[in-house]
């Protein structure tokens, strides 16, 4: 029986391997250079947060969450962190928290300018869109292999994989937020002779802020899911707890790791969502 797929095979896997090998062979210094700032930010955050006495951290968390959201969410955050601490996973929690903070910071720094550019240039947006689609639907595990080859294993490569994985929503929603600014408001700003920087800073960004914050929220959630998976390539934190529980078939270990992740997710989600709502009311002049 003649099978058409036997007659010819596209060696796509070989190609991808060839490309990555070539990148590793020729651009290793470049990738090491990317590693450096991530390493610095992560190490600083982690050291700082771990150095703070636990009780002080909890009080500080309450105050920050109160300020950013409201006192109820402040209270909830403190209780959630304290619970994880009493379970015995304080250090893992702080490591995961630091990884999320670092990766989200880089996502914001890279993603918002890209989103702004995409909103202003139709051509760039057309190119960017399929790339974002691909990044968002690609299974998380697929990122791990090239990241290991280019950056080796450990927590820093884990954060880099996380940045790539969770970058898409902030770009998308920054772009969307800017495009949703009513056309006549933009026309009004232009009719008074605004420069494009004035238009952006005085009109578009303030009005897009709540949508951008929704993007930050999604990015945080994605990065939290990825820092857990990144445990597979040697990143530390709560993910390690889950995987060691899985490897040794210890349901209790895996379970408490899972609880820690869920509580951290809830804390981050509540805080950023309330921030998004607040900025939404403010940009509509209701706050």
């Amino acid at each position, binding site marked *: 029986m003649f099978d058409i797929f036997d007659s010819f095979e596209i060696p796509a896997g070989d190609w991808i391997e060839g490309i990555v090998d070539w990148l590793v062979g020729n651009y290793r210094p470049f990738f090491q250079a990317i590693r450096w700032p991530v390493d610095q930010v992560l190490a600083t955050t982690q050291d700082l947060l771990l150095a703070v006495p636990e009780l002080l951290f909890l009080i500080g968390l309450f105050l920050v969450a109160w300020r950013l959201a409201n006192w109820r969410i402040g209270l909830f955050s403190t209780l959630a962190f304290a619970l994880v601490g009493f379970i015995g996973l304080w250090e893992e929690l702080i490591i995961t928290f630091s990884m999320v903070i670092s990766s989200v910071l880089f996502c914001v720094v890279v993603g918002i300018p890209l989103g702004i550019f995409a909103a202003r240039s139709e051509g760039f947006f057309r190119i960017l869109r399929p790339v974002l689609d691909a990044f968002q639907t690609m299974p998380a595990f697929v990122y791990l292999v090239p990241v290991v080859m280019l950056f080796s294993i450990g927590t820093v490569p884990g954060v880099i994989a996380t940045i790539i994985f969770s970058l898409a929503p902030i770009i998308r929603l920054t772009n969307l937020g800017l495009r949703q600014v009513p056309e006549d*408001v933009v*026309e009004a700003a232009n009719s008074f002779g605004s420069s494009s920087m004035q238009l952006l800073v005085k009109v578009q960004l303030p009005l897009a802020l709540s949508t951008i914050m929704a993007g930050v929220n999604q990015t945080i959630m994605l990065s939290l899911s990825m820092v857990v998976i990144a445990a597979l390539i040697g990143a530390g934190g709560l993910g390690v707890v889950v995987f060691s529980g899985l490897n040794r078939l210890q349901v209790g270990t895996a379970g408490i790791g899972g609880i820690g992740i869920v509580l951290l997710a809830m804390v981050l989600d509540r805080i950023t969502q309330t921030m998004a709502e607040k900025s939404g009311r403010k940009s509509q002049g209701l706050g």
Partner: protein
Amino acid sequence: MSHVQLKEVSKVFGANADTALRLMREGKDKTEVQAQTGATVGVYNASIEIARGETFVVMGLSGSGKSTLLRCINRIHEPTSGVVKVGDVDVTKLDRKELQEFRRRAFGMVFQRFALLPHRTVTGNVEYGLEVKGVPREERLRKVEEVLELVGLGGWGDHRPSQLSGGMQQRVGLARALAVDPDILLMDEAFSALDPLIKREMQDELLSLQERMQKTIIFITHDLDEALKLGDRIAVMKDGRVVQVGTPEEIVSEPEDEYVAAFTAGVDRSKVLTAGSIMKDPSPVIRSKDGPKTALQLMRRHGISSLFVVDNQGKLVGLLDADSATGAADRGAKSIAEAIDPNPTTVDVDTPLRESMRIASEGNWPAAVTDASGRLRGVLVKGAILSALTSQPEYSDAPDESAADTSATAHG
């Protein structure tokens, strides 16, 4: 010299602009052009001259290109072809930076849906134009205070736009435009989103502001009554073309084509037409030195019962009716001088028709129509007024005849 001048301005949206313009030149309408090329013609070949201090209204239905035309003036829409001049400046030739500078000092724009910045206070909105100009804060606030007072919003500076009613929001929009002291106010359906009472109030306010400011105002509207009320002159647009430019009176009484005639069909004519536009030829007239017999003979020949009396310069002296003329003739008077009624009902040529009707019906028919120097220009007869009010002028070049011809209401 004109203040704003548009020379053969066209605006095509989409690709194939050249083909679209060529088809328009060949006389195709914009629907056909769109079907053939996919391009949308916003404005085609518009040439307009607007004088300094004039309130110029551009009127048309939605999709007629009036808002696009307005946006071509400050290049919010880039004209596809043609020239826009403001004073000596060729706006179409400015580069990006120059255009930005020019917009900052020349234009203030007011939008249909207000287009305020919701995240800023009223003050924050009004100072926006000054802020982008780089005016120091102190000076900005002083100016804001002043214009808010001007539009009747003194003391509202700290409110958010969302806390204000539509009418008040548009006052903020107007204040924002006035704050930069522009030469030219561009008003895009500025009052269309307001409810009728507020709308009228804003129109009156704009008129009284304009009396003081003497800006050049370009006002877009789809509302004929608004156009007639505000406009010194009106341009009527249809499907991207300017079909007629004229004074309100010309637009109503001498519509250039069927479209304009249809547009003006519902208008309250008594507000627009003046005594001058519906008066009849005053002849025959008579002079005070003429004899009563001559007068009676003239009346008999023309089948009328009275005559206006003028002097050598054509100035109105009085009215002679048939009874007094007969009396004078019976007495054997040499001239009609002592039989003349020296105070006939008189209206000025520029008196609106409604006012003329009131004056005429309080006095006696026919009423004399005189100009500023007192010369007799025409007569108002009851029948002519009624037919002017009820009829539809035909878009022919003989509006006077059609005024009496009620069969011309065909497009109504």
